[in-house]
């Protein structure tokens, strides 16, 4: 029977289908893996109430476990504590940026608390001369920005 840490490693192949470079662990969707008396319990949490990728990620977790010969498992979905973009780890933030998505501002950023928008750097050219086009983007977790320097549009993983 693999250990909880080994299973977590195994689940590294489960990616967000909308952002296929980032694993559910790096995204903070994978909350916990435990092994009790031979039963594996995987706890996941949705990013957004209506995130359509959630069902897919759950199926991928199940498929990965089965493929590894693990039959006795349960995938549990919890809502509380609510997922926050602060749970995306540094590795995940770096991968988002490389993929062309600006990583989210930290919610504890003092400017965020004061209701001001922290400057967002363009993932293409790095300029902070950027402007919000829409709070809502191609998926529930993204906002649409444009860069005034290189003129490219880009997605921001919005603070949540």
């Amino acid at each position, binding site marked *: 029977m693999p250990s909880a840490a080994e299973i977590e490693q195994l689940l590294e192949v489960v990616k967000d289908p909308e952002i296929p470079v980032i694993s559910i662990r790096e995204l903070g969707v994978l909350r916990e893996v435990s092994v009790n008396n031979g039963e594996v319990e995987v706890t996941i949490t*949705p990013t*957004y*109430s*209506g*995130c*359509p990728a959630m069902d897919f990620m759950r199926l991928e977790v199940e498929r990965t476990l089965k493929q590894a010969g693990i039959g006795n498992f349960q995938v549990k979905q*919890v*809502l*509380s*504590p*609510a*997922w926050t973009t602060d749970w995306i780890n540094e590795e995940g933030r770096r991968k988002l940026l490389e993929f062309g998505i600006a990583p989210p501002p930290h919610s504890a950023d003092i400017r965020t608390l004061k209701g001001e928008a922290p400057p967002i750097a363009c993932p293409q050219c790095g300029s902070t001369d950027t402007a919000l*086009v*829409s*709070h*809502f*983007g*191609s998926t*529930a977790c993204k906002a*649409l920005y444009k860069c005034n320097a290189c003129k490219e549009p880009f997605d921001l993983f919005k603070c*949540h």
Partner: protein
Amino acid sequence: MNQQEALFRFALRMGDNALVLGHRISEWCGHAPALEEDIAQTNIALDLIGQARNYLTYAGEVEGKGRKEDDLAYLRDSREYINALITEQPKGDFAHTIVRSFLWDAFHRPLLNALANSSDERLKGIAEKAVKEVAYHLRHSSEWLIRFGDGTEESHRRAQTALDELWRFTGELFEADEAEQILAKEGVIPPLESLKAEWNATVDRVLAEATLKRPSEGWMASGGKKGVHTEHLSLMLAEMQTLQRSYPGVEW
């Protein structure tokens, strides 16, 4: 009515409100005035429908009769829906949609803020997640309303007309039914009238900036929360439910 029945009814209502409004907003998909707005409205609809799934799943569990989210969404008639009347009104022109969203969002956010501290763990969890989404909804509808009201003569006129027409549906939001009274007494949900001060403050602040006139209180419509609806709901449900009604149990 015992507390479990009250909880069923409340979870069902939260689900109905989110589902019916989410469906109405989704009617803009492919029809919004600009591409970015099309995406924004469908995102908002998706948030609401996701919230509805969480509430309806919970309602089914509390009821304990084996009804799942889909049974509750697709196999009830309008008399069994207990959403507020404002959520079922047709989408109208874009000003109408924005005004309705704004009046609802200004109520929805303080409600979820309070539910995020509910003694009921499940409601608390759903609300904690939803409140962050709804903060974006309120910001979006407020920004549009200000742009319409303080925009051209035409946009101002349309926004004011929508406001005057929809105002009569706002009274019902704060009228607690028996279930809500029981749950408020137990500290599971906030007393609905306690949300009125924040709603008033938001409405007055945004309307002032939008140079729109707050309608006088006047006569208020109600009934939705008891299952007595305007004619619009059954027509909407007919469309929303047609697939499950025609092919019972079909899966995507």
